């Protein structure tokens, strides 16, 4: 009887109910689209950021992230690689060596002779060209010159003497592909290290900050330069899906327990980036709150009108012996019936909208720069979040705004309402 009464009461004032349903459905739809869009954008940004450079998971010597020392190396990385290769969630992985150096480039004009007049400090990344290409598609970002020549061994005889500069760094050094370059640094054995390289290419990663202070040499060259024979600092792991990263990190960590290494997801090693994402999520929550607040005002207006119009009816119910709790439940149920209808209608509309936006993203003109990475299109993604978060918000909103009017209706004085209405 309670459900029957509530259901039929909802449709007593059809026009008003339809307007309320439109408000609630609109609230659901906007929230759902916002979440889908944000999730899609975040997903794109995270995948772009991690696929293009860091990977979604990284393995380092224990303590390397807190204190990235040249001495904190992984010496048996090939066996770790074998473990990674056995995991279905791992797409590929790439070994890297990190250090710093002073770069100096000989001025291009003939009069300067052997004077290396342009210099800059830079981060040096040693990488395996073929594995790096498989992981980050590194060579696709080369804007002039070519990719480093692959060289598997770390013997002096396999050194290529090639270097790739970030685009902004090449501008600072006034260098271009084919120029010679001197690198000065300190090796892991304590000796000073210097070598001459030929600039093989110029790379533009899409992140100007990185391109301003980074250069790349082969893993073999880096081992020779920094006296790190057979060692690396990092294994960057590329996964098949962002959603599996946390579980995969735990799995790898468990499989590598006993070794002096640590396994972290992008949320840990790219903490600032992750925190930036979380901060943006807060703005999404504020937006959903505002949308739901507007919808709540519509529902509140309807419920208040309904309670006012039915005062006499509540008086009769009370006179006949209806308990206040029954009336409260009936009115809250009426609001929730409207909520459920809105959720169903909103879900259908949202699915259509999200499908469209997941195929035809919003072109950003001009493109936005997020943490140095430039994005030119926002694509929505469909996930359970797009449905259950707005659904919970609608139900909470409907229950909250209907409760006080319901309480008021439940405490209607029978004699007074029958006398005055």
């Amino acid at each position: 009887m309670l459900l029957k009464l509530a259901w039929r009461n909802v449709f007593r004032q059809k026009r008003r109910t339809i307007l309320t349903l439109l408000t609630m459905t609109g609230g659901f739809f906007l929230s759902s689209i916002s979440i889908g869009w944000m999730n899609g954008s975040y997903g794109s940004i995270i995948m772009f950021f991690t696929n293009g450079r860091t990977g979604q998971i990284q393995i380092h010597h224990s303590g390397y992230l807190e204190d990235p020392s040249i001495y904190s190396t992984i010496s048996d990385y090939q066996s770790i690689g074998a473990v990674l290769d056995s995991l279905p969630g791992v797409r590929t992985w790439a070994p890297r060596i990190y250090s710093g150096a002073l770069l100096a480039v000989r001025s291009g004009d003939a009069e300067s002779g052997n004077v290396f007049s342009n210099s800059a400090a830079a981060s040096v990344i040693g990488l395996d060209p073929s594995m790096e290409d498989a992981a980050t598609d590194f060579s696709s970002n080369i804007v002039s010159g070519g990719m480093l020549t692959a060289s598997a061994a770390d013997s002096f005889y396999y050194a290529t003497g090639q270097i790739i500069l970030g685009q902004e760094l090449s501008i600072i050094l006034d260098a271009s592909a084919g120029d010679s370059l001197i690198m000065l640094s300190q090796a892991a054995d304590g000796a000073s290290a210097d070598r001459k390289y030929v600039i093989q290419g110029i790379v533009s990663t899409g992140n100007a900050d990185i391109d301003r202070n980074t250069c790349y040499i082969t893993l073999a060259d880096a081992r020779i330069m920094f006296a790190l024979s057979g060692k690396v600092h990092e294994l960057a792991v590329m996964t098949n899906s962002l959603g599996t990263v946390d579980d995969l990190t735990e799995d790898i960590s468990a499989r590598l327990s006993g070794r002096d290494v640590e396994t972290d997801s992008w949320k840990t090693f790219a903490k600032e980036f992750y925190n930036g994402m979380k901060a943006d999520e807060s703005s999404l929550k504020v937006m959903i709150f505002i949308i739901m607040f507007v919808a709540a005002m519509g529902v509140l207006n309807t419920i208040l009108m309904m309670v006012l119009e039915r005062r006499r009816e509540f008086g009769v119910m009370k006179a006949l012996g209806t308990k206040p709790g029954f009336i409260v439940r009936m009115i809250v149920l009426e609001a929730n019936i409207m909520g459920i209808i809105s959720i169903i209608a909103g879900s259908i509309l949202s699915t259509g909208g999200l499908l469209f936006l997941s195929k035809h993203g919003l072109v950003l003109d001009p493109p936005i720069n997020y943490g140095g990475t430039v994005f030119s299109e926002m694509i929505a993604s469909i996930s359970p979040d797009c449905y259950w978060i707005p659904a919970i918000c609608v139900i909470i909103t409907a229950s909250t705004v209907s409760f006080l009017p319901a309480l008021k209706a439940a405490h209607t004085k029978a004699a007074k309402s029958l006398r005055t209405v």
Partner: protein
Amino acid sequence: MVDTNVIVAEGIVKTYDDSGVPVHAVRGIDYTLTKGEFTAIIGPSGSGKTTFLNVLAGLDTPTEGKVWLSGKLISEMSGRELSDFRRDHIGFVFQAYNLFPVLTVEENVEYIMLLQGIPPAERHKRVMNSLEKVGIAEYATRLPLQLSGGQQQRVAVARAVVSRPSLVIADEPTANLDSKTSGALLDMMRKLNEETGMTFLFSTHDEIVIQRAKKIVVLRDGKLDGNTSPEKFE
């Protein structure tokens, strides 16, 4: 307390103070209603009929005085106790019918038994029995707005008697009906009173009700102004 008394009211005073100016609606009434009565409370507008009826029915609390209904002191019951008591002991017929517009005739009559927790089969049997008694069983599946005023009031009577209460209180039940319909409704209620022994208490100015009442109680300026028979009243 004698068993045949349905209502015993002692020194009932009801004063409203809603607007800051006290309004003395009922000014000290002692009254007893015995089982099986078919009594009309009459009096001019503003004489306190509805207020007195509300106090007797436990819809309103007296400012002073005590009311016993079926031997229970209802004037000192809590809201929850009164609610349960009204549900089980009093049937109401209102001037404006006050049926639930979203429920069918059958569901309107059934409503009170749902509150009482009566099983569905028993409910259905009693609903149909009540509707037959008031001569409206054929309209069981209709909504109230699909019925005439007289038919709606018959449904209201069926709703009032279906739970077999000790007392049926009817506040101006014929005020919105024409004389022919009013007469038929009162005849039907009187028949119910005679067949079941159920006690009826009306407030009215309607001569049709007065003519059919077994006893008349006259109220004037919030006080009892006599207790008489319809013949003497005429």
